[in-house]
């Protein structure tokens, strides 16, 4: 097995965010979903020249605002106050989602409840019958960008793998996920095949035992 084990421990969310950030090409336009994906921005440097999109109408979103920087008219999709960067721009909601739906964003990083080997994503609804449905921009993000990456813990709190053969929860998008970053490894999805690019704190064989999906080692 030639899969590199690149850490002696499972990655923390911050460490994983750094791995994701390293994979984002210089000059890319990126949307980072609410929650864990937001951490990725902490590991992008000015030299990377990555432009962040927030679907509530801004390109070139800056860092979280603090103290006197807070402007109620300047928030991100998570409704957190942020600041501008030089070269940013504002636009309305239809233009903002046209930008996403039109495939202009290079990548989008999202959290997930489940991802299956076909790249189907479930991240908006647990499927519990009494849950009130609420989708926000999740479906638009899942299908709009050129590439959709998922960033999540591999397992639920109860220890079940969130990488599955077939999603059991209501879908957010069909066949949209091309890569999954988890605390235990990075998975590449293509044509129903799941390739492990690297592992963290676990060997390939051990990882393969914990996931009910056939895994292929990279190389």
């Amino acid at each position, binding site marked *: 097995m030639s899969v590199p084990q690149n850490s002696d421990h499972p990655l923390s969310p911050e460490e994983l965010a750094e791995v994701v950030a390293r994979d984002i090409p210089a000059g890319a336009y990126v949307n980072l979903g609410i929650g864990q994906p937001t951490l990725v921005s902490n590991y992008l440097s000015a030299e990377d020249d990555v432009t962040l999109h927030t679907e509530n109408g801004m390109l070139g979103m800056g860092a979280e605002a603090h103290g006197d920087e*807070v402007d*109620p*008219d300047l928030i991100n999709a998570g409704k957190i106050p942020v600041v501008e960067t030089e070269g940013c721009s504002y636009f309305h909601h239809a233009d903002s989602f046209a930008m996403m739906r039109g495939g202009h964003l290079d990548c989008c990083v999202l959290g997930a409840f489940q991802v299956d080997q076909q790249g189907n994503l479930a991240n908006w609804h647990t499927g519990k019958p009494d849950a009130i449905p609420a989708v926000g921009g999740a479906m638009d993000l899942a299908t709009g960008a050129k590439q959709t990456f998922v960033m999540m813990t591999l397992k639920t709190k109860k220890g079940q793998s969130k990488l599955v053969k077939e999603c059991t929860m209501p879908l*957010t998008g069909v066949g949209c996920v091309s890569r999954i970053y988890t605390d235990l490894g990075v998975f590449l999805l293509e044509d129903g095949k799941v390739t492990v690019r690297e592992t963290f704190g676990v060997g390939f064989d051990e990882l393969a035992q914990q996931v009910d999906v056939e895994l292929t080692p990279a190389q």
Partner: protein
Amino acid sequence: MLNIADSAAAAVELIHDGACVMIGGFGVAGQPVELIDALIEHGAKDLTVVNNNAGNGDVGLAKLIQLGRVQKIICSFPRQSDSWHFDEKYRAGEIELEVVPQGNLAERIRAAGAGIGAFFTPTGYGTPLAEGKEVRELDGKHQVLEYPIHADFSLTKAYRADKAGNLVYRKTARNFGPIMAAAATHSIVQVSDIVERGQIDPEVVVTPGIYVDTVVQINRPQQQDPREEGAA
């Protein structure tokens, strides 16, 4: 011709029972707080409301829902940590809910203003929100047919208007404002400032005056600190 209302109360007085009312804003940014308060005071009921959310806390849209004035809500994200009034009405079967992906919501509102009868969009294909909808494969993707959302009235907030009704916004408070003003038969806009014609550069107008029916000046609009609002 532009109607410049003397007060928020006067601005909303034409809203009738049973009207479909779009309300702008995303989080605290762009929320037309004074217009919503005026609508609450006004008393119109059996409303259909189009908004990104379904109200937060005990004020504004949440209050309108609590008072039982909203018959149906079309939104992308009703469930929030502090959407208790909506939650209660919904679980009691007292409010109808149409959940729409945020980008489809925006495009459907845009389509209403732009005279587009329907459009195919990839968003939502294969999900419960597209169940029963017409699907076609276009540009190599499965796409779902979606229809415009028209409204009788829109309540939105802009930064400045001139007396031709042209509007400019501030930062991410722009959000749904321009498309809702265009989609509503009667658009009502609160602004911090009304200036003479010619005082807004024609190159930077975001909403041309043709889309604006009524403006009201609210010099110092209430604006909550975004850090105090519930999570999205």
